[in-house]
């Protein structure tokens, strides 16, 4: 393990507090879990009266990126080497996997663990293990590029 030159404990904690505040706000005002994959998946289910808040949450997420990147474009740089086919496979895996496993980093990792849910804890351990194995293969076997 070499030096942790990119470690950002303070900024990451502040960002985490804001994410927690946003998730808590969605719970207090809408009574919903702030799981991004669940919010997106529900749009495809097209249940009446259950669409607009989902779309608006995702539009807010999108708008934040659009606005924030005008002032801090370096927050969105991609410094890992990934081909287009690798990104497509990754996207499909995240799309299908989060629906099958009914949650992602936000729904299971933050809200689920925050609710002390056994299911979400197991899910988080599961996706952390396979993410670590995947990064090991890409970085140590394939030389960091795919």
């Amino acid at each position, binding site marked *: 393990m070499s030096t942790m030159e990119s470690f*950002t404990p303070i900024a990451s904690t502040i960002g985490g507090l*804001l994410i927690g505040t946003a998730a808590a706000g969605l719970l207090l005002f809408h009574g919903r879990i702030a799981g991004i994959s669940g919010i997106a998946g529900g749009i495809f289910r097209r249940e009446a009266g259950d669409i607009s808040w989902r779309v608006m949450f995702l539009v807010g997420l999108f708008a934040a990126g659009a606005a924030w990147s005008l002032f801090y474009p370096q927050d969105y740089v991609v410094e890992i080497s990934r081909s287009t086919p690798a990104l497509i496979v990754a996207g499909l*895996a*995240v799309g299908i996997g*989060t629906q099958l496993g009914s949650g992602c980093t936000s729904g299971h990792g933050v809200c689920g663990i925050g609710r002390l849910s056994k299911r979400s804890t197991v899910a988080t351990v599961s996706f952390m293990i396979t993410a670590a194995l995947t990064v090991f293969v890409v970085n140590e076997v394939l030389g960091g590029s795919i």
Partner: protein
Amino acid sequence: MKVTIGAFLGGALFGVGLAIAGMTQPAKIVGFFDFFGSWDPSLAFVMVGAILVYTPVYRWAIRTWQHPVWAPAFSLPTRSDIDGRLVLGSAIFGVGWGLGGYCPGPAFTSVGARSQEALTFGLAMLIGVGIYQVFMRMREKRNGGAVDPQAAAMIDG
């Protein structure tokens, strides 16, 4: 109207939090799992920070609030059993997360930031979400109702 503005502001705050936390940079995600290279523990600080706010608010709300401000009731996950679908789906998600360096939240907000990589990843992700949801709906139709409503609905988040 106020309902959609609330969801919009929630999404926007979530997006700003992700950017400040560094979670919109795939290198920081990959770095968290790069135990044999230059390990970057930032992701753990993000999760702990978020849970530190979320857990007390959640516990207080479900104990003392009759209903959320703009909804008749809280819509919370109820299931507690561990099934293969949960573990397998999460495992597949983890492969994609490690491969692309994006999970759904950072992907959506980085598309807003006009990242080409996020756009490619995000479109494939939406196709994946759509394939699953359409497939489940077809299965439900064939069976004349919800075969396994908890499998189709996003029950944990």
